[in-house]
């Protein structure tokens, strides 16, 4: 197969490469090169100030005995296991609510999606004040209702801090997952539902036997994206709890940040980043495999 470009005849496959060239260039410049640099950095003692020196695998070995690293990894897994299903179920319910073209449905879709366009840091700041014990609305509400006598320290205990952040993220991120799910839902032909209705299937039965099975791929996409997002959580913890109380809410990315910019050990931070990348690759692969479409 051949094709022509500016009057020259070139093999067709070359044209394909030309088409992906812009994308490849961007990916190389902003992903592959930094990745290579990070990998190289991870093999060095690389102080932020001063000169790097080759360290081989020393950073990786140090990482294995670093209790803080494992502690933050464990906490990140815990957070991800809580927040990913929560976002998914909440977004699925929202998508079902706004799926049909009822009156004002556009307003609701917009309203649910709106928090997504706010930056995570701004959202975290906003909620820090909502949760504040002196001026926050949640404590004031509970006190006005007479449910509590003293202001609640939402971010003062590990579990309530985690719950508070999960609530914020639910508000912030569910709209995005909702849109993904909505697209998948609307791709299902209406006649399937009509046929099912004729056969006497109710609303729940239709969801169970039509919507869910036909949305496997959409589920895989939505879950993987929110899973990766949760695993890389940083801003919400950095702003809302700063890792407290008792350093119990330090996520893995927060720990990488601390190693790199509080301790100025860039090489060590890079090594942790590489390990995190590997973990995410394996877990995402596993997830996609579990949710694979059998017909593929």
């Amino acid at each position, binding site marked *: 197969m051949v094709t022509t470009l500016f009057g020259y005849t070139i093999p067709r496959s070359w044209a394909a490469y030309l088409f992906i060239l812009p994308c490849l260039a961007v990916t190389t410049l902003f992903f592959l090169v930094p990745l290579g640099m990070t990998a190289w950095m991870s093999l060095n003692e690389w102080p932020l100030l001063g000169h790097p020196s080759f360290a081989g695998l020393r950073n990786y070995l140090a990482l294995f005995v670093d209790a803080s690293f494992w502690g933050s990894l464990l906490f990140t897994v815990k957070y991800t296991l809580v927040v990913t299903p929560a976002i998914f179920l909440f977004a699925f319910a929202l998508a079902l609510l706004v799926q049909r073209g009822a009156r004002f449905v556009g307003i609701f879709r917009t309203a649910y999606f709106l928090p997504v366009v706010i930056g995570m840091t701004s959202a975290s700041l906003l909620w820090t004040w909502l949760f504040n014990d002196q001026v926050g609305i949640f404590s004031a509400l509970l006190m006005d209702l007479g449910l509590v006598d003293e202001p609640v320290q939402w971010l003062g205990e590990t579990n309530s801090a985690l719950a508070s952040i999960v609530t914020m993220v639910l508000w912030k991120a569910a709209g995005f997952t909702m849109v993904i799910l909505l697209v998948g839902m609307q791709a299902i032909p209406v006649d399937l539902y009509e046929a099912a209705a004729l056969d006497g299937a109710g609303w729940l039965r239709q969801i169970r036997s039509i919507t869910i099975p036909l949305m496997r791929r959409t589920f895989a996409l939505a879950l993987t994206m929110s899973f990766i997002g949760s695993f890389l959580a940083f801003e919400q913890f950095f702003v809302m709890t700063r890792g407290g109380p*008792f350093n119990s809410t330090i996520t893995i990315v927060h720990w990488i940040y601390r190693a790199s910019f509080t301790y100025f050990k860039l090489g060590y931070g890079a090594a942790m980043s590489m390990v995190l990348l590997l973990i995410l690759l394996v877990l995402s692969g596993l997830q996609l495999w579990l949710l694979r479409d059998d017909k593929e």
Partner: protein
Amino acid sequence: MRIPPTLRRLTGALAGLLLAAAAQAQTEITFWVRAPDAGFVEPLVKNWNASHNNKVALTVIPADDFVTKFGTAVAGGAAPDVVAIDLIFVPAFSQAGQLTEIGAEARALPYAKSLSPSHLRLAMYEGRQYAVPFSAESSFLVYNKDLFKKAGLDPEKPPKTMGELEAYAKKIAGLGKGVKGFYFSGACGGCNIFTMTPYVWASGGDVFTPDNKQEALDTPALRNTLAMYRRLWEAGAIPAGAKTDNGSSFISPFFTGKIGMIGSGAFSIGLLKKEHPELDFGVAPLPGDKGGSASFAGGDSIAIPKGSKHKKEAWEFIQWCLSPEVQVEQFAKNGSLPVRADLADNAYSRQDSRFAVAAAQMQAGRTPYSVKFNQLINDPNGPWLAMIQEAVFGPGVDPAIKNAQQKFRQILAAP
């Protein structure tokens, strides 16, 4: 070669013009400070820019990010021309080679001997001087005289020992209706090195060994201090919000008139007088367990980072910052302390005896010297804050000190 006289004259005139133009040309001096300083530095920069040819461009950096931002800027070749840093970080920045040595210039200052000794001690690294004092801040106890009266205490007799302080705080908290005896920012490491260590020092303890190379945490002095905080917390004499206050509240709970005593700095005298004239407050030294007192001598030092392109202009600006025009007419006038002992007694300090307490504490104050200060003390996830949190709100004083010792040793041993 013979140059025609006209041409020679012309060249001379041209050279003169060029020189004049060079003198006229404005140099922009970039200046970084941490956010808590914005209040007194912004007017200072405005005054300088109104009266000088070279202009200063000020950048205010959030306090918690200062070390990181400044470190990365120097590493990336984007350092400012002048920087005012918490004096506590000067050793670390000097060690990392981020500052320009200014010892000769500093020693030539006519008032060199009157500069704050704590600032100067921390400005030295391996015999070289990298900074000069900029602003001064000492810590002491601020107390609400009205609440003292209401609780049946003598408002002219602040606590002289930690035992008295504890008893007074509990007594004041006993007034109820949201009134509490004591306040501190329980999630802020930097705040507590400022307001809590003086109790430890006054009781004969310290955070570091005298050579500053090892931790010295396991002492009765620190144990008693932490235990006092814990008892006050357990007795409900401290507001619940203290636990999560990362320093953003610091003294503001005292503004409500519902806090009996709080450790704070000289800045709060000016602030309280200006913003809350309704509060009748007194100041007193922070006591030890058997009397005595101590203070943290803090504030900012000012330095020229490596890579500054305008060192000469920067030094001119720094000298102006040390002049009476700034130290007295701006700092002292707005209720903070001058960094020069020869200016400590001035028209403004004489108006209020409370400034005398602050100034005396500054002279007698102590400051820990560590190149690892940020990792140990100021890091919101560092061992100093973890120790306070565990000791006061968590499992207890002994396990907290034990954990902290281990982490202090780890960090101090690292290269």
